[in-house]
């Protein structure tokens, strides 16, 4: 994979993305880039399910929230170093996802989608009643947690760089999977699951694996993000609306491609930022997102990238 130019482009872009605000010491830029980076992580990992395997994980936010909780709990109550805590969050959540996945991935279409919403709701309910994790109030990070990273200011920069690293990892992982035998099998499942099975693709295993894989990086990102925020509570951690926005981003940019979710995340963030200033009611956000999703599904199901591919078929080769 490293013999092709594309992965190097990803690394180069990530370096720029990370270092420009760092060297200009631009905190505002960093904050908005951080949010975009988190969305790119959510969208590109979600894309593995939607765009490759063809399963819509409506409740994808559960990985982010649960990873956040595990990380903050380990840092706050057991003084674990951040990276280790986030890593364990990632591993634990993807292990859980593997377990759950083997069960709910037997369901097709809307049933799977609903099941994922249900999983998110169930986990949120359980966490809200779980005292060691602060119940409904959540976990407030003690300020000295930032001490090991050189104080709050430095910690914010460190988390930013780590999140950008995760973003790059997400894109590289999407690329690597896409060009692998595993990826081909997944895409075959997404095209026609029954035909794929007849061709020999081990569908139950592959689906569970990708569901689990799609949980890992978002869980780690959740750990880092909520560490930076200093607080995590159930409603924010398992927010279904964010989950849905991730889906819109994937569809907007072009599901099944590498750049699509990234493009979609950026565009949607821009749109949202604009709307927040223009319209005080946050609930029009949902209307806009819904209308956008509807338009995409009706008229441009391939999203932006799909549109470009249709107009200029040659781009299919290099613009993925």
């Amino acid at each position, binding site marked *: 994979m490293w013999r092709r130019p594309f992965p190097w482009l990803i690394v180069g872009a990530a370096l720029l993305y990370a270092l420009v605000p760092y060297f200009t010491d631009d905190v505002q830029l960093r904050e908005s880039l951080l949010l975009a980076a988190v969305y790119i992580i959510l969208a590109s990992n979600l894309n593995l399910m939607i765009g490759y395997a063809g399963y819509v994980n409506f409740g994808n936010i559960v990985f982010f929230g649960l990873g956040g909780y595990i990380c903050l709990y380990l840092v706050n109550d057991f003084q674990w170093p951040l990276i280790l805590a986030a890593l364990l969050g990632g591993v634990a959540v993807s292990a859980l996802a593997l377990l759950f996945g083997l069960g709910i991935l037997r369901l097709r279409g809307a049933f799977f989608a609903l099941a994922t919403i249900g999983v998110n709701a169930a986990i949120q309910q359980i966490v809200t009643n779980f005292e060691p994790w602060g119940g409904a109030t959540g976990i407030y990070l003690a300020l000295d947690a930032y001490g090991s990273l050189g104080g709050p200011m430095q910690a914010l920069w460190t988390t930013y760089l780590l999140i950008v690293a995760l973003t790059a990892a997400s894109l590289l992982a999407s690329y690597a999977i896409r*060009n*692998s*035998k595993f990826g*081909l*099998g997944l*895409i*075959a499942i997404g*095209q*026609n699951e*029954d*035909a*794929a*099975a*007849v*061709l*020999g*693709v*081990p*569908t139950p295993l592959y689906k569970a694996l990708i569901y689990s894989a799609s949980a890992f990086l978002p869980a780690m990102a959740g750990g880092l993000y909520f560490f930076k925020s200093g607080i995590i509570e159930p409603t924010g951690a398992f927010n279904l609306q964010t989950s849905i926005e991730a889906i819109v981003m994937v569809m907007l940019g072009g599901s*099944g491609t590498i750049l699509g979710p990234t493009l979609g995340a950026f565009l949607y963030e821009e749109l949202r930022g604009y709307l927040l200033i223009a319209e005080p009611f946050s609930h029009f956000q949902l209307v806009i997102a819904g209308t956008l999703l509807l338009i995409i599904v009706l008229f441009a199901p391939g999203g932006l990238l799909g549109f470009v591919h249709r107009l200029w078929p040659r781009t299919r080769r290099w613009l993925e």
Partner: protein
Amino acid sequence: MTALLSVIGLGKKFGGLQAVQGLDLTLNEGEILGLIGPNGAGKSTVFNLINGVFPPDAGRIVLEGKDITGEPPYRVARHGLARAHQIVQPLLGLSVLDNCTVGACFGRENLPLHRARDVAREVAESVGLGDRLDMLASSLTTAGKKRLELARALSARPRVLLLDEVLSGLNPTETEGMIRTVRRIRDGGVAILMIEHIMRAIMSLSDRIVVLNLGRKLAEGTPQEVASNPAVITAYLGEPQLMAAAENPG
């Protein structure tokens, strides 16, 4: 003659309907076995039972000495049995080459991606799709899609191939071409079990024929034997093709 695929006492019930009952059949190496019968005789169900789409209620299926009864389709494919469907199921968003690569990757040989792609290219070319390798499967003609269905199944380099009405929807020239292709596949070492309604073709292609009616085996034998079997003719009463084949065997 080594038996490659054996079906013993196969039975399947759907609700109140006994779709298949007490079926025995054997496919030998290097053989083309034709499976014919009036509509609703249970032929497609037999295929579905063999390649694992449904588990049978009774009986066993043995492939190359291994009991594959009730195994899911992807395991059956891994054991070396491939299937080309009557209603083609191309992976529409993938190219012809990618479609075949899937077959080569996940079939009997379980090849890595690069090798699989080479095999896929070879097989696609041998079936006449060499000039369309990079075309999306969705933009193929019906005949092209039928060829893709076949190429994809062959890319797995199976030992046994199930062909489900590969000749339907083809014009006479295409039919001739496909008949030649099927013979070539058999000559290449793949045993074939085929369902077909075009009597002339299946009579000339098959080494042996099994006739199914209402889920049970009605007759078995060479094409000539079957065509002149009175029970078979009765079952097909009114089928001009079979009557013609009975009058002009071979």
